């Protein structure tokens, strides 16, 4: 009977396995990173303002909201391609990713999308605390969650483009999502 109970618990825990998710959201931008069984799903939304990530990705410069969806492998060349921190649930980083990943972007929400091939893609989060002094000598502290992205298009591998997307920590959540086979 005990063995049957243990077997039942084992099967159940497998069926309802929880996967970490990281999300930050404001009224104008969104970053969601969801770990799956063998992939990491990335959903980024934001405006294509000058020098922003979306202006570099889409080569547009306007205040429309764009969306990027990518699926990144968790393992590449038998090595981990993705690191997630257990101590700091908002921290993650891509490691060595394969060349030739596809990024799908569109105006959000729109069924019409464009696919671009990337030579390289690096994506990570960091927790930053910035301190400065006011002229009166008071220390000003600003905490933020920063998503750093660097990438190069497949047709211009030598030109690495970088951009940051910043959020206040209160706009971010790290949680767990029950894995569903439909994903």
């Amino acid at each position: 009977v005990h063995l049957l109970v243990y077997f039942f618990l084992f099967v159940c825990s497998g069926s309802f396995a929880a996967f970490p998710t990281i999300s930050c959201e404001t009224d104008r931008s969104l970053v969601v990173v969801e770990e799956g069984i063998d992939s990491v799903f990335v959903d980024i939304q934001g405006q294509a303002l000058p020098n922003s990530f979306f202006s570099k990705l889409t080569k547009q410069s306007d205040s429309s909201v764009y969306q990027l969806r990518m699926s990144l492998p968790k393992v590449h060349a038998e090595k981990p391609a993705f690191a997630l921190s257990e101590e700091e649930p908002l921290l993650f980083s891509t490691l060595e990713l394969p060349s030739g990943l596809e990024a799908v972007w569109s105006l959000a929400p729109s069924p019409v999308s464009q696919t671009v091939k990337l030579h390289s893609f690096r994506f990570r989060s960091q927790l930053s605390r910035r301190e400065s002094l006011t002229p009166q000598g008071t220390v000003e502290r600003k905490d933020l969650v920063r998503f750093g992205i660097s990438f190069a298009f497949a047709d211009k591998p030598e030109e690495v483009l970088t951009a940051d997307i910043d959020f206040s920590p209160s706009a971010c959540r790290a949680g767990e999502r029950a894995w569903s086979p439909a994903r």
Partner: protein
Amino acid sequence: MKYPIILLSFFVCLISRADIFCDDSEQSASIQFTDTEVAIRISKWASPDSIAAKLSKKPGRAKALFTMAFTRKTGPSVARAREACVVGKGNPLLLSCQFLESSPVKVKLSIEGSDESQTFDISRADFRSAVESNRFVGAQGVTQEEKVSFTGIMYGPGLTSGTTLSIEFQGKDCGPAPRIAR
């Protein structure tokens, strides 16, 4: 007994401390306080489209050296340049200065390795540092790094609006450094 004290005073006068000094072998910045002036020296790679990049007539990356010495802030409460700055009590790398000169000071921009240079008359400048502590994860787990940045916004008769000068270092490349007084 008198002589050791005189000798000690002589060395204290001879050696002064640069309050902030950063050097990562590519770029450097120093902010040195004396009784009469705050001397700032910044050596950095010129950004594309900057004044330094335009001044350098050679193609490719140019290294710019900015030297300036603010002498006095006018106003009833501050008589000396060093009093125009506040320094962080808990962190000596934190600095905030507001210079307002009675007559403009010369800020010199030179292109290293060439004879090209230009001077600017600056009558007002805000100079601040910021310290950023970043935590991120890599293959080896969570890592922490510290960055120190300096930003100067300068105003002068020949400049239409505030001209910004900024530079950034890793925290490990910054600290107080003893220097011989000029």
